[in-house]
């Protein structure tokens, strides 16, 4: 089983050293993503969901004061056993990331075409500008950009937020990564644009067979995207299971609160929900999983 998994996180802990000792923020996370599987990690701000992605990407480990323990297997390989150079080589090629705000994630002083070329060079250092431009045009067409030539010649600030988001998705998939880390993609965008980009991203990762770790604070956003969901609360996974099971049969008190808090299209007002409750700290609930 493990050998086929794209990502296998075991007992992941993260703590920060400070003046009085250290504070642990991740208390032993286990998370698995099978090949081609779309997994969502859902929790509130400060729950540890974004740092988990940063640890997988390998940038958290370089933060002063951060201490990471546990094992992360990426395609069966232990990420900790890799050298710094090897890890850097994985980033942007076998593993890529999409950030929340596409406009700030794209370097404003280079044209999109140059940025696409840079990304391609990470996998194929010898690639020519012409070849990069051709491949860039192809992938931009895949994210439903009708005039890729204009976009390749533009700077990020000349494009709309939705267009930048598509460019980000295109760039993150151009090297055919095995794993895509998506941290609240589209939260900074209008709802209609967000819905479009999520659908687009879903279709694309499906056709490319990319595994995805999708990070969000809103269960509603991941319902139509994820195969499986992990709910995280204060550095612990509190419930995990197939998407349908989480929505139809949420068992952990925190998951229930998270679901109840989302305003319903069918109306009924805003329910009274406790912000903190001892029951949120109850042990993890794992749903039966049917794995292919």
């Amino acid at each position, binding site marked *: 089983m493990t050998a086929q998994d794209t990502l296998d996180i075991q007992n992941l802990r993260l703590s920060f050293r400070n003046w009085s000792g250290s504070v642990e923020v991740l208390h032993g996370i286990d998370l698995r993503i099978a090949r081609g599987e779309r997994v969502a990690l859902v929790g*509130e*701000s400060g729950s540890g969901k974004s740092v988990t992605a940063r640890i997988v990407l390998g940038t958290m480990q370089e933060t002063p004061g951060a201490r990471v323990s546990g094992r992360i297997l990426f395609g069966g390989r232990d990420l900790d056993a890799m050298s710094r150079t090897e890890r850097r080589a994985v980033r942007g090629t076998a593993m890529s990331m999409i950030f929340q705000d596409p406009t700030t994630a794209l370097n404003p002083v280079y044209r999109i075409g140059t940025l696409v070329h840079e990304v391609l060079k990470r996998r194929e250092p010898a690639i020519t500008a012409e070849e990069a431009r051709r491949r860039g045009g192809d992938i931009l067409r895949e994210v439903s950009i009708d005039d890729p030539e204009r976009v390749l010649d533009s700077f990020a600030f000349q494009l709309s*937020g939705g267009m930048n988001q598509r460019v980000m998705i295109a760039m993150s998939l151009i090297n055919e990564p095995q794993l895509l880390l998506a941290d609240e993609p589209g939260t900074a965008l*209008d*709802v*209609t*644009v*967000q*819905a*479009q980009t999520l659908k687009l991203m879903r279709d694309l990762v499906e056709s490319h067979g990319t595994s995805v770790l999708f990070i969000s*604070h*809103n*269960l*509603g*956003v991941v*319902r*139509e995207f994820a195969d499986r969901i992990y709910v995280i609360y204060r550095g612990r996974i509190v419930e995990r299971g197939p998407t349908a099971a989480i*929505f139809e049969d949420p068992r952990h008190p925190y998951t229930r*609160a*998270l*679901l*109840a*808090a*989302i*305003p*319903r*299209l*069918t*109306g*009924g*007002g*805003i*329910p*009274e*929900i406790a*912000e903190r409750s001892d029951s949120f700290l109850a042990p993890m609930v794992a749903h039966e999983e049917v794995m292919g």
Partner: protein
Amino acid sequence: MTSEPILSVIDVTKRFTVGQRVVTAVDGVSFDVAEGECLAVVGESGSGKSTIANMILGLYPPSEGSLIFRGRDLPERRTLELRRQIQLVQQNPLSSLNPRRSIAASLRLALDVHGYGAPAERPGIIEDLLAEVGLDPHLARRSPAGLSGGQRQRVAIARALACRSDLIVLDEPTSALDVIVQARVLRLLEELRRAHGLTYIFITHDLSVVRNVADRVAVFQRGKLIEFAATARIFEDPGTEYTRSLISAIPVVSEEEAALRDSLARAGVP
């Protein structure tokens, strides 16, 4: 709701000059806001919803048309009294609250500017305000950085309420918050509206929030008001293709909602 509107927006147009170009941000918009209602203003970025709000607040005057508040024209230069009556809660309390000022000092400033209450009574008023928005009194000495996002937004709401305002413009007040915190802040806003007879202009792009808090909805697209109706009506029979597209983009959490959403989205398709 009484028959006399608290605010009337009449044929309002706002144009901005950007370099050589003239951009019409709001284009011939008219609507009434009833006393005590929660009116949702929805639309995508660039639809003109914030421009309308800024004109109501008096940050800039309309290029054409007029704004009538309680039967009187809103002047370009607002009196202190008018500024007290119309208040604002912004999206991000981290930027709307002064980071160097304690919570108590931020609230005190609002009271001092408007000369609300006798100076000796003001600390007591601040304590009551904090209690009213569900904040522990010991938080008063902290700076905004020492509070959570939800607590900060409660402070911003307390400040808008401080001098007993009548009309509050809520500009995406919960879109930066976690879902559970959002639900709690929305409930607080609803309780405060009932308790004080407040009127809200609730600017948002989240239609599932609108469904649950608003009495009426104004839909903006590219500076024009394209739909204006009771909330129930908008969600039973959306009148424009654009409103349907907004509804179709709502993330939902149950099959029942998904079915409703998809039927509404399809309603206009021949």
